């Protein structure tokens, strides 16, 4: 549905997106993840045809966003960040204008608008001036706009930005409902959002794609390579034991409760599974008769993955 090849956007003073390539298949719900300023909006704007890429190309539904721009744009419903609307129009007037602009035939326009109004749950505001709407309702009108021509693909830029927790929950519910019939690409810097609605995520940082995959794959890809242990031993003893374990890289220790207990974090060398490392560490401690109170491989949350991916990139850049 979306094919991006080596997309690059150079604003002259800053390169917002560098050689970004990814694909989104029909029916997928993909989260576009990255910290603020990572280039998410720029990428989505290039896909929506609002910005032209400095180099590289993108196709929407098989149509090139530059060469076949009109047909590419007809295939997608795009909701810009903070959904800018004409304040002087009523909600229905605005959606009727958008439907006409998107070439919904005159006879079907009213029905299309009614459908979008009810899907986005703004039917009760149809006759209200857009300028009098709250932020949450404006966001929903933006969604209704994206939906009004029933496009197969929806691209939503930060659909929950600036909303209160209740509104966020409602918008997410809406997005989940939409996911059943549409291909969806939505950007966000909020992780639970991806976990609650997306089947796959693209992680972008400083304009580069740093990871992509299903949420499980992402977690697995950056599986914790460390084991946390709490043992009863004199300081230094457990540390030297563990440092000799095969596959252990660095060992950090910290004394707990007056020196009786020691907390140790053993990092694995790359390629070694944290679970395996835990087994070996426990064996080694057992042979040395060191009592172990607690041992667990640390599994990464998506937030760890995110921090690691975007943090590592930062170090590389520095």
């Amino acid at each position, binding site marked *: 549905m979306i094919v991006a090849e080596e997309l690059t956007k150079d604003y002259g003073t800053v390169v917002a997106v560098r050689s970004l390539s990814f694909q989104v298949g029909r029916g997928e719900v993909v989260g576009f993840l990255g910290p603020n300023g990572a280039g998410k909006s720029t990428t989505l704007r290039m896909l929506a045809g609002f910005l032209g890429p400095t180099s590289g190309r993108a196709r929407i539904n098989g149509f090139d966003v530059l060469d076949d721009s009109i047909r590419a*744009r007809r295939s997608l419903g795009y909701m810009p960040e903070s959904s800018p609307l*004409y304040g002087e*129009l009523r909600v229905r007037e605005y959606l009727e204008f958008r439907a006409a602009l998107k070439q919904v035939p005159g006879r079907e326009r009213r029905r299309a608008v009614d459908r979008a109004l009810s899907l986005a749950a703004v039917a009760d505001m149809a006759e209200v001036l857009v300028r009098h709407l709250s932020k949450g309702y404006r966001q929903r009108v933006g969604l209704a706009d994206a939906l009004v021509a029933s496009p197969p693909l929806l691209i939503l830029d930060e659909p929950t930005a600036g909303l209160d927790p209740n509104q966020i929950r409602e918008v997410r519910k809406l997005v989940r409902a939409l996911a059943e019939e549409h291909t969806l690409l939505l950007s966000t810097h909020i992780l639970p959002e991806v976990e609650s609605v997306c089947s796959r995520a693209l992680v972008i940082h400083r304009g580069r794609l740093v990871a992509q995959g299903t949420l499980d794959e992402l977690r697995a890809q950056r599986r914790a390579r460390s084991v946390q242990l709490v043992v009863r031993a004199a300081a230094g003893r457990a540390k030297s034991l563990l440092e000799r374990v095969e596959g252990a890289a660095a060992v950090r220790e910290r004394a707990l409760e007056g020196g009786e207990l020691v907390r140790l974090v053993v990092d694995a060398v790359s390629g070694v599974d944290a679970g395996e490392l835990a087994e070996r560490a426990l064996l080694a401690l057992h042979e040395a008769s060191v009592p172990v109170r607690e041992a667990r491989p640390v599994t990464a949350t998506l937030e760890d993955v995110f921090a690691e991916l975007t943090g590592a990139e930062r170090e590389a850049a520095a």
Partner: protein
Amino acid sequence: MTGFAAVYRREVLSLWVTPLAWVLLTVFLLIQGMSFFTIVLHLSNAAQLAVDAGPIQSWFGQSIFLVLALLVLCPGVTMRVLAEERKSGTIEALLTAPVTPAAVVLGKYLATLTTYVAMWAPTLLYVVILRNTGQVDWPVVGASYLGVLGTGAGYLAVGVLASSMTESQLVALVMTALVLLGLLILGIGEYVFEPDSILREVCATVSVLSKMEEMSRGVVDLRRLVFDSTLVALPLFMAVRVVESWRWG
């Protein structure tokens, strides 16, 4: 030209549901009404009238108020059409819909032209008043309104171009007014440069004052119409290119 009709309708609607058009209309009709009233009053006191010196001729052809009113009216109508879209960000929604830059520019331009024509419509009452009290030379009325339409069409195109070049409505307004004032002053050059010099010819051709004076006598010169058309086509073409260039910003 996909999307043209929708852009046009939305623009006309937005122009007339906001106070701007009504404020401009009021000021414009006030100026025109006073100008017309003064002229009729003056002529009614005159002992003798030349054949081509009726109120229609004076009002369209010999009054600087007409041009001055246009210098305010046209930039006022066009200043927001593109500048506001960019300032408020609605341009992003507009240009990600399946619509071409040409449709956006032309739709908006024709909306301002429609508004302009609508603002002139009440002045037909003056002609009706004259007909009820005397004779009206209809070809003269026709030529005069054609002159007003051509002048306004060019001015509005300049205004649309200015609006595409800035995010500030005020800057668009001032920029348009300055360009139009420049054209007006260039036209006055007709009386400054020596007769038969090329400069004088150029100034006479672009002069809006001479144009209106001619047309108010029923003289329709093709050169005037060609100049007006150029002043419509060139700025609009440039505005389309400006809109296209935004995506490379």
